[in-house]
């Protein structure tokens, strides 16, 4: 793999012939993933960590043609940390948590995304998508269970009762591959979706946006700055946000009638940016003109073909909910499919993927639609109302809260049949259906640990010490807080509303699925069965 030294970072990979191409009959595999974007790569690494081999097919052989995503959320970083990439991403990324919104030259609203201390991962980092993808590819290469095949383009998909047959085009011709399960991670223009004749239902926003990555040395702080009606781009909106390597993301709203080909030309782009950046010297790394969509498939699971990430749902980028939600899709699906493949859960467990990630998709589409409508009102009267909010913002707190330049991605709270409802009241930021909050703890040797670092890939019981260690059901990992891990600073106790004897059951994706004030072996067994799909 090479990284070119040119200002545009590119990872270049090679096509390699697979023995499957020489087989006389299609070879059968447990899992084939179509697409080596952030979502497909995340899924493959998670499968490998669970002992399940995965093949990834990707039609390209390089990464880095333009950046796309830059903002990665705490939840994505926590998932990446479990997969072994947390430190690397945070080290390379630009950590931020403050956002400011300006009307003209005046600040009207600001937000702070992580007011709570004692988390291993920051609220957000900015990082070019190609770095994330490059690191994921490198991580995948360390795992022998992953077979990543570049320049393997899926051209046809045949659904059978208990397997899927893929036709794949390579530089050396076509071959076929059978798989028990096919994960379609092939992005918003999914070929797999087309092959199955599925409709992607949603809305295309009329507005066009210029997205530019600019290299410059600038003294702006590491904050997300968003302007409505800035002096340098009158009547429209603008965004400025730092990335690593002195690269800055700039979005400029262009209106619905802008000509995308004209607007991409450097002689057109540079003056626009000069008005914004003044005398500063800058280089253009990447420019593109977008019109955004919000859309989703009605169903994500189609027999043994499962849609994950942008192939299943697409959002406009205000709120950074695209890759971040796709990464959560992958994590949600993989532990479930691993249990199904290992015969430990019924196939119906996958319905909960559909349900939970469907809820998340609706939430994400709702948020990003509202943000886009606020930034680019669809009608004249809508604009009047939007402007009224902006006019009131300097004068009234409620209007500042309505100013919407994007509500940034947070983890979804699942209203799910996998969850056992509470019988007792619990306070704290830990909530049923949400991933558990992190907390700093000491291990038995007094070394500093973070809760999330200790959790691993399996179901896990957190038990707050109250006498002897209880006998947990076979196969369930237990950590005793107050013995295995010590809550010296009290963050765990506060966040979990922990009392002696309390027990918390965590799913493999670290979502809290049951809790009780005192250990009850039967209830825990039932909760565990429920979390594996017994109640679906």
């Amino acid at each position, binding site marked *: 793999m090479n990284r070119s030294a040119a200002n545009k970072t590119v990872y270049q990979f090679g096509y390699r012939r697979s023995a499957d191409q020489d087989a006389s009959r299609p070879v059968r595999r447990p899992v084939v993933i179509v697409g080596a974007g952030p979502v497909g790569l995340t899924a493959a690494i998670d499968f490998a960590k669970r002992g399940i081999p995965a093949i990834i097919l990707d039609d390209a052989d390089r990464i880095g043609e333009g950046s796309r995503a830059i903002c990665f959320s705490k939840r994505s970083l926590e998932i990446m940390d479990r997969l072994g990439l947390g430190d690397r991403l945070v080290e390379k990324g630009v950590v931020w948590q403050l956002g400011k919104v300006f009307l003209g030259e005046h600040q009207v609203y600001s937000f702070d995304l992580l007011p709570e201390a004692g988390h291993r991962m920051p609220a957000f980092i900015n990082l070019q998508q190609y770095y994330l993808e490059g690191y994921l590819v490198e991580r995948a290469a360390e795992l022998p269970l992953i077979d990543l095949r570049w320049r393997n383009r899926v051209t046809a998909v045949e659904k059978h009762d208990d397997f899927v047959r893929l036709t794949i085009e390579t530089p050396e011709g076509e071959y076929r591959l059978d798989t028990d399960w096919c994960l379609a991670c092939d992005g918003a223009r999914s070929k797999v979706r087309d092959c199955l004749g599925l409709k992607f239902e949603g809305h295309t926003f009329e507005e066009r946006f210029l997205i530019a990555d600019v290299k410059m040395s600038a003294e702006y702080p590491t904050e997300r700055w968003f302007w409505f009606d800035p002096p340098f781009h009158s009547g429209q909106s603008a965004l400025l946000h730092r990335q690593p390597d002195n690269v800055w993301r700039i979005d400029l709203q262009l209106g619905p009638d802008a000509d995308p080909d004209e607007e991409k030309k450097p002689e057109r782009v540079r003056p626009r940016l000069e008005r914004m950046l003044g005398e500063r010297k800058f280089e253009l790394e990447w420019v593109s003109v977008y019109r955004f969509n919000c859309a989703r498939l009605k169903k994500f699971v189609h027999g043994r073909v499962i849609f994950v990430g942008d192939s299943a749902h697409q959002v406009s980028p205000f709120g950074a909910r695209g890759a971040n939600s796709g990464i959560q899709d992958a994590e949600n699906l993989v532990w479930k499919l691993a249990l199904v493949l290992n015969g430990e859960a019924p196939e119906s467990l996958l319905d909960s993927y559909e349900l939970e990630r469907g809820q998340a998709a609706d939430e994400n589409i709702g948020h990003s639609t509202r943000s886009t409508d606020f930034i680019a009102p669809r009608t004249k009267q809508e604009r009047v109302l939007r402007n*009224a*909010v902006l006019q*009131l913002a300097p004068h009234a707190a*409620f*209007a500042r809260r*309505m100013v919407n330049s994007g509500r940034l991605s947070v983890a979804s709270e699942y209203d799910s049949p996998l969850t056992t409802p509470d019988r007792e009241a619990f306070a704290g930021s830990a909530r049923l259906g949400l991933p558990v909050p992190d907390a700093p703890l000491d291990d038995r040797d007094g070394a500093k640990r973070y809760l999330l670092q200790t959790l691993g890939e399996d179901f896990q019981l957190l038990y707050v010490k109250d006498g002897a260690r209880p006998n947990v059901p076979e196969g369930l990992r237990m950590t005793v807080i107050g013995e295995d891990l010590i809550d010296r600073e009290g963050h765990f106790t506060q966040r979990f509303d922990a009392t002696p004897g309390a027990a918390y059951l965590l799913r493999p994706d670290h979502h809290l699925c049951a809790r009780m004030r005192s250990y009850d072996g039967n209830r825990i067994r039932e909760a565990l069965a429920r979390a594996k799909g017994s109640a679906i």
Partner: protein
Amino acid sequence: MTALKTENGFANPDAAYEALVEAHRGLAEAESAALNARLVLILSNHIGDLKVLKEAISLAKKAG
């Protein structure tokens, strides 16, 4: 159960109507529309109840 009050709430409803009318006197159409938008937002927030707001919206739509 309706949460929106539709019976008269003002001691002097004529004075309330007059206040609204006066606010618009001398404004161009666009200024008037903008003023109304600001008023709607201020009053909506004052009510602070999405259910009441939605009932008000549907009454307004029905009456038009």
